[in-house]
């Protein structure tokens, strides 16, 4: 029997504990079956294309053009800043939760210049664990059950599970090739305005925009952004704008921030990434920029998920940003020099692929290139597993050619997988020796 007295002393507790203990032991019959499965919010979200393909490509004998990971060195001053910071004691302890002061200040300066509007470093910016963390904070803050979120296909794969984890319904709309399947440029891939308009309804809480686009490399034009903006304003829809590749645009193209279009600042959260800006994906720092009335909700999510991001990395990043901020009018600014470096890699990659008989889609931005592999007519019908053609092709290519890529159907919703299964994605932010090794493979492709 349990004694409910509140008057306890140490001995009393021990006695009571013993009595309870014995009572519990006697009342427990057979061990209960383990009922602890996953929560509903993560049902079906456990598999992941990266887990599958990064494992396969981890073999060092494979030329890895799959995962979007630079094997070029970050600029030396970025590495030096981190080394300097390591020596400063107080930078090893907690900093401001929503973003290290010197970093949010630097970000506000850079983006004020780009956007042409005042950005408050404390209320309009949140620093997160990579752009991934920004996407998560934005979606958790603003999306819930009953909402619909428009996702443009192909899409960076995390958008779909994140929307689902928030309890909402993803509504897909594909980019379609306007030149009847014969695409040579990312600009050939467009949204059908009427089709897009049809996707909007009273439940549409947000649309996720990714420009420059992963995987196709499309840089949305002003007109295209205007169509999206008009619909957002008409339906009072938010825009989550993933602009991690914002500096990586090639000649003849301009990255335009949808938040700068009239009526859009107040309904847009713009996401950026240190990993992509400075070739330091392993620093895992990103940011969300937007109006206070939206960012404050992201801050609430952040203070209830991980609270602060690492201090030394934020300080080093802030210093790097100051250096490039000062030379934003100079072509040597890393924001522009990286893009020039990548353009020549892009062109080299495209050339190699064409020579091997493949049809690359030349990207206007980003560091990925999609390639139509159907022209090779590789027969994989005998390959056992029921997987889309591009999955089978990549696995075959890894095994027989020692070259890896990512299948495009990983970036599509269920209805569109068929449309994209003849494409695979290559990453070209790779050092010369990696591209040399890829060249050897591609040149020897047909000699088997």
């Amino acid at each position: 029997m349990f004694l409910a007295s509140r008057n306890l002393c140490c001995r009393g507790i021990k006695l009571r504990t013993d009595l309870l203990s014995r009572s519990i032991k006697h009342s427990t019959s057979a061990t209960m079956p383990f009922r602890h499965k996953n929560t509903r919010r993560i049902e079906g979200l456990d598999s992941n294309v990266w887990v599958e393909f990064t494992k396969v490509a981890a073999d060092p004998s494979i030329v890895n053009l799959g995962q979007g990971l630079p094997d070029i060195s970050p600029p030396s001053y970025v590495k030096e800043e981190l080394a300097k910071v390591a020596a400063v004691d107080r930078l090893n302890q907690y900093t401001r939760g929503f973003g290290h002061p010197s970093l949010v200040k630097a970000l506000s300066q850079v983006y004020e210049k780009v956007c042409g509007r005042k950005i408050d470093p404390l209320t309009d910016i949140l620093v997160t664990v990579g752009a991934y963390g920004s996407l998560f904070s934005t979606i958790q803050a603003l999306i819930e059950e009953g909402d619909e979120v428009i996702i443009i296909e192909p899409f960076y794969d995390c958008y779909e599970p994140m929307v689902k984890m928030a309890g909402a319904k993803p509504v897909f709309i594909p980019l379609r090739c306007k030149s009847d399947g014969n695409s040579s440029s990312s600009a050939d891939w467009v949204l059908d305005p009427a089709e897009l308009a049809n996707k909007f309804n009273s439940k549409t809480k947000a649309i996720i925009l990714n420009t420059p686009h992963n995987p196709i490399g499309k840089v949305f034009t002003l007109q295209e952004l205007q169509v999206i903006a008009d619909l957002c304003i008409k339906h009072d829809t938010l825009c989550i704008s993933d602009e991690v590749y914002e500096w990586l645009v090639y000649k003849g193209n301009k990255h335009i921030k949808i938040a700068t279009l009239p009526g859009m600042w107040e309904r847009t959260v713009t996401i950026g990434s240190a990993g992509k800006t400075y070739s330091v994906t392993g620093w895992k720092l990103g940011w969300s920029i937007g109006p206070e009335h939206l960012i404050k909700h992201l801050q609430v999510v952040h203070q209830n998920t991980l609270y602060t991001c690492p201090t030394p990395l934020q300080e080093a990043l802030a210093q790097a940003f100051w250096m490039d901020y000062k030379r934003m009018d100079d072509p040597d600014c890393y924001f522009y020099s990286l893009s020039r470096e990548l353009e020549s890699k892009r062109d080299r990659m495209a050339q190699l692929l064409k020579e091997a008989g493949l049809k690359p889609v030349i990207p206007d931005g980003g560091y990925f290139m999609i390639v139509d592999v159907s022209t090779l007519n590789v027969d994989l019908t005998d390959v056992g597993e029921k997987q889309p053609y591009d999955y089978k092709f990549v696995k075959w290519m890894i095994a027989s050619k020692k070259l890896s890529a990512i299948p495009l159907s990983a970036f599509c919703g269920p209805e569109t997988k068929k449309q994209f299964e003849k494409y695979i994605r290559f990453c070209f932010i790779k050092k010369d020796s990696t591209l040399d090794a890829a060249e050897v493979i591609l040149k020897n492709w047909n000699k088997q």
Partner: protein
Amino acid sequence: FLFHSLQAKMSRPVQARRLEGIDKNVWVEFVKLAATYSKVNLGQGFPDFPPPDFLTEALTRALGGGSHMLHQYTRAFGHPPLVKVLAQFFEKLLGRDLDPMTNVMVTVGAYQALFCCFQALVDEGDEVIIIEPFFDCYEPMVKMAGGTPVFVPLRPNPPKDGRLMSSADWQLDPAELVSKFSKRTKAIVLNSPNNPLGKVFSHEELGLIAELCVKHDVLCISDEVYEWLVYDGKQHIRIASLQGMWDRTVIIGSAGKTFSATGWKVGWVVGPDRLLQHLRTVHQNSVYHCATIAQEAVAQGFQRELTLYGKPESYFVQLPKELQQKRDWLVQSLDGVGMKPIIPEGTYFLVADISPFKSDVPDVPNSDEPYDSRFAKWMVKNKGLAAIPLSAFYSEAHKNNYTNFIRFCFAKEEATLKAANDILQKWKQEKTS
């Protein structure tokens, strides 16, 4: 039609309902106050002394080394060298074999480990037992996951001989604890050593919690971030090593607390694959990777500790020794001016009863704010000494249960603790004169 649907949309708040009731945060306010007013900051829990040299050297080595690939993504569930050494370490501590790939996951601080636990395991309608006083994030995290927090207090039993209370004198009432378990109880959050009291749960106390978990098939989220900070020869006991507990416990740890580097934000979970698999799903859909270079340096730190385990040069032996001295110093300091510290068995926090100083901060009847919170704010503004009110660690309903306690952090340089003593002495003198 469009107009009406727009009206409906605009009348709804823009933010998701999961944020309801979790927007307030005590730290935002108190950190700002400390930054503005404090001359001596014993508030927020972080050391003002540097991390050990071997750790910062490990970072410098990693940066200086040939591989710039340490600046790129590593394995999402944890940098291989780190999960390997954590597995080795915890194998020793738990006395069981661990697979670094499935029984360990690295997180962005213990904070994100807690988040993964609640999101992975707590559904709408689930109850989660939280022992008060508690590290404040447990409650909003449970709520954000749609769960219902169920609170059970540690109750103070002051010693009859007039000596200072110890954190051991704050105990759960076993019958009260039993009554909190229901059909809907999904998990209990255990924090030992406990922040803010510094309590180190005894074998008997853990045994009771364990039996209830087994009986009711309840999970245990065991926040053990202060696992190395135990004093007076006490032992930190890992509840996962008790019978029936490994299969239902997620152990949370922190490099920030272990290596005095809170700003690195490297934490981890250790547990059975059938629970960790769900944490991995949350992790891969929320942050995915943790920063590589910090993980590399922490791995090296652990390697060093593995070779020095149990030896006097081990940081895990030296740090608690150092902190115990600081604890005793602060205890003396507070006792010397009439504040009554509760001597903590562990952590780097202590809670003190500030009753003799209450006359400086008159009570305001019908105030929404708990007295200790007003006191702490007055103290930082007028005396330049920052501390955190105990009510910050209680649920809304119980914030006024204890009005006279504030929490001090003593992971501070000697100079800081001396300066705190000066402020307290001066204050006392002002009161007596």
